[in-house]
């Protein structure tokens, strides 16, 4: 069966919903589809905690937000995109306010802001510490106003359909029935989020398996800057549950096993006393950028100054001095999560934390309109790389990014759809039949498979963490590249116990693993080829930044063998590369 729309969103998180609403508001006659493997309000935007950045207060400036973002990204950001992003951010955030987002407020009724890491001024809007949750539900509920948005809830997209040189929709499985169908669109927008599940310790939910990135990669679209993986310095051990940076923005401090504020040893400034009215100092100590804080953890570990625990070593995030009242008002979720999942009450005890994989700076290569190299295919949000995050994303830019670029990609895709020729329906149906055969052949007909999904996933997780984690080297990365190749070969022999059609989550797990292996391959090879250290990509064998050779985006193309890595210049407009300075 084939259903037709003008624009098809793959993914119903923040970016997908923002795009859908943008189209519905500007073109009420267009038919819009939102295809999501979960009900939209389950999307992982829901888990974002601390806030979303936009300049709103008089003491701040657009220039400051631009500079913080570019320096935070170690000059890998495209500056035209950053400038557009920062200029549009306040308007998008006010739009969210008008749609009802319950932003925390100052006493005069204006929106309140808090500081985050790497920021010269406080500019993070927040809804207590459940900002992503409130933004997602506000967007989802607002989307219900528009009856030209058709939702495909719990439909799992498996393949981008390319016909006549342009993207014309996707093949997707309706999970309830197991039917494989064509959802055709004159334009398609990938909004599938990140791929943190490639790693063992991650803040990402089970659904973050890089589906959209892998589908685009398979369709010949390059994945850009995939080596840049953000470790968030404060995840709970074991589960990887995020303890928001807002905990440090409100004054929380990081301590090693001796109760020493170790960040002062890593060129991040000198600590002020917690009772000093100037604490916490912006762009200093605990409010340094995420990459530097995660790297400091590894160094502390090597100095044997971390605390051993049942899920590896940890350090302590101490917010006790904030007091119960402030913690309950500003960080209630931090308290709830710490009590439930770390077994401690942060009002009385420090929180054990370690760096955990949080965010992918890289993704589907797009221009400033969200357009990819494949006509008709757009991307926005974490699955895309536009790129405003460079080599290290600044905390609280990602929620704003999905609004700004979700909206922009939506409008661009609508313009494309209005001018696009008719869909090649017959050919699309044939392609879907092929895809159906592929899935049946690979996952249902194979009787002699021996490989279990779980084992392959675990081995992938292990190699990524040990060899493509916070610090990498040629030796470690070559091992990972070989290991991923081996896992891809073994994937062919995967066995499914479940041969049924109705809500077969073993099948979707297998398809997700296949997506993750492709994305892992792009990460490992991009990291191997980048023989410099920049932002979140730290090579122990090439410890210096090398602007002469690597002020360039890596572009990974899938081939029949290993990926081909090309490069594209970073767009530098007004802010020439400089040193990243924190704590001064």
């Amino acid at each position, binding site marked *: 069966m084939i259903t037709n729309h003008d624009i098809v969103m793959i993914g119903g998180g923040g970016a997908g919903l923002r795009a859908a609403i943008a189209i519905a508001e500007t073109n009420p006659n267009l038919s819009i589809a939102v295809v999501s493997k979960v009900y939209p309000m389950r999307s992982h935007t829901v888990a974002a905690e601390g806030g979303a950045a936009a300049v709103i207060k008089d003491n701040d400036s657009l220039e400051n937000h631009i500079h913080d973002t570019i320096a935070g990204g170690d000059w890998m950001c495209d500056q035209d995109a950053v400038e557009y992003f920062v200029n549009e951010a306040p308007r998008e955030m006010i739009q969210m306010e008008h749609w009802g987002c319950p932003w925390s407020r100052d006493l005069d009724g204006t929106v309140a802001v808090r500081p985050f890491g790497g920021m010269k001024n406080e500019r993070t809007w927040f809804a207590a510490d*459940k900002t992503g949750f409130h933004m997602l539900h506000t967007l989802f509920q607002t989307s219900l106003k528009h009856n030209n948005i058709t939702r495909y809830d719990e439909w799992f997209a498996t393949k981008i359909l390319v016909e006549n040189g342009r993207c014309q929709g996707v093949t997707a499985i309706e999970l309830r029935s197991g039917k494989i169908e064509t959802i055709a669109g004159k334009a398609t927008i990938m909004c599938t989020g990140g791929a943190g599940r490639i790693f063992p310790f991650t803040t990402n939910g089970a659904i973050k398996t890089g589906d959209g990135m892998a589908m685009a990669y398979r369709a010949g679209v390059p994945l850009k800057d995939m080596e840049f993986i953000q470790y968030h310095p404060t995840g709970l051990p074991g589960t990887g549950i995020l303890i928001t940076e807002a905990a440090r923005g409100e004054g929380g401090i990081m301590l090693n096993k001796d109760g020493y504020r170790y960040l002062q040893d890593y060129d991040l400034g000198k600590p002020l006393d917690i009772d000093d009215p100037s604490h916490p100092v912006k762009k200093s100590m605990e409010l340094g950028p995420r990459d530097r804080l995660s790297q400091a953890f590894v160094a502390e570990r090597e100095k044997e100054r971390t605390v051993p625990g049942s899920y590896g070593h940890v350090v302590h995030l101490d917010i006790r001095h904030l007091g119960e009242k402030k913690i309950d008002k500003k960080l209630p979720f931090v308290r709830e999560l710490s009590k439930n999942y770390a077994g401690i009450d942060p009002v009385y005890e420090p929180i054990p934390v370690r760096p955990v994989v949080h965010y992918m700076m890289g993704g589907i290569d797009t221009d400033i309109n969200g357009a990819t190299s494949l006509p008709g295919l757009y991307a926005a949000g974490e699955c895309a790389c536009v790129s405003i995050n460079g080599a290290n994303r600044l905390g609280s830019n990602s929620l704003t990014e999905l609004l700004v670029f979700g909206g922009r990609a939506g409008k661009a895709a609508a313009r494309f759809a209005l001018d696009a020729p008719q869909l090649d329906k017959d050919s699309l149906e044939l392609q879907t039949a092929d895809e159906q055969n592929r899935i049946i052949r690979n996952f249902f007909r194979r009787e002699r498979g021996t490989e279990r999904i779980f084992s392959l996933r675990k081995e992938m997780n292990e190699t990524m963490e040990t060899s493509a984690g916070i610090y990498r080297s040629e030796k470690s990365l070559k091992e990972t590249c070989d290991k991923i190749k081996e896992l891809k070969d073994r994937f062919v022999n995967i066995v499914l116990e479940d041969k049924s059609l109705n809500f077969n989550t073993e099948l979707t797990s297998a398809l997700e693993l296949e997506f993750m292996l492709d994305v892992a391959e792009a990460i490992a090879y991009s990291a191997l080829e980048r023989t410099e250290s920049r932002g979140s990509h730290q090579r122990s064998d090439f410890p210096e930044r090398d602007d002469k050779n690597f002020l360039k985006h890596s572009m990974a193309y899938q081939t029949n063998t290993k990926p081909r890595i090309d490069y594209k210049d970073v767009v530098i407009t007004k802010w020439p590369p400089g040193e990243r300075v924190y704590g001064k």
Partner: protein
Amino acid sequence: MAETIKLEIFRYRPEKESEPTFLTYEVPFLEDWVVLDAINHIKDEIDGTLSYRWSCQMGVCGSCGVMINGVPKLSCAAFLKDYYPDKIRVEPLTGFPVERDLISQIDDFMTKLTKIQPYIIRKRGEEKPLDEGEYLQTPAELARFKPYSMCINCMLCYAACPVYALDSTFIGPAAIALGQRYNMDSRDHGRSARQELIASHEGIWECTFVGECSAVCPKDVDPAAAIQRAKVSSTVDWFKDVLIPWGKKK
């Protein structure tokens, strides 16, 4: 040998079975495991055919609601140690049709959610242009509706609701709470549009304020209070409409 715990899990695959059955699985008992960890262990290492929903593992995505020993709970927030050494019985949420295994169909809720108009409705001509900035809202005004905005749509309150169990046309706790969330938002003018739906159905008058919904809510939304408030509002509206029609100016 390491300690273990048994889980008795509701299994139903409509393609293969005409009746649901229970299968018992034995999994390692770890002090810090939640029921979801045990279910994931079963899926990964014992029986790949078990289907269930989950994602965030931190109690905010709302996917993983199930009945645990007869009580609606998020499986990511129910700890094995609270049941050990007894067997744990896991079933899909009651009150909903079963899709398969632990997965219930929530289409009915999604329809009701849309009907309650959960979005800001401004009087015509009173929309503030974006260029003029945000609507002002004091912390006190925010606090009035904030608790009702915390609903994660996990459906535990429906599974606990004695009225919904008997009459599935009842719009139900979470949807009413969400309607109230917007009704009480200082930026909203849509109360009368929503009130019609909330008050039109008998269900709301059958709710006896037993408060089962609020007792199971993992986010302290207190839908029972929202329902009570909606009843009072409806009574006041009726009073204004019928007895003092000139009082409708507002």
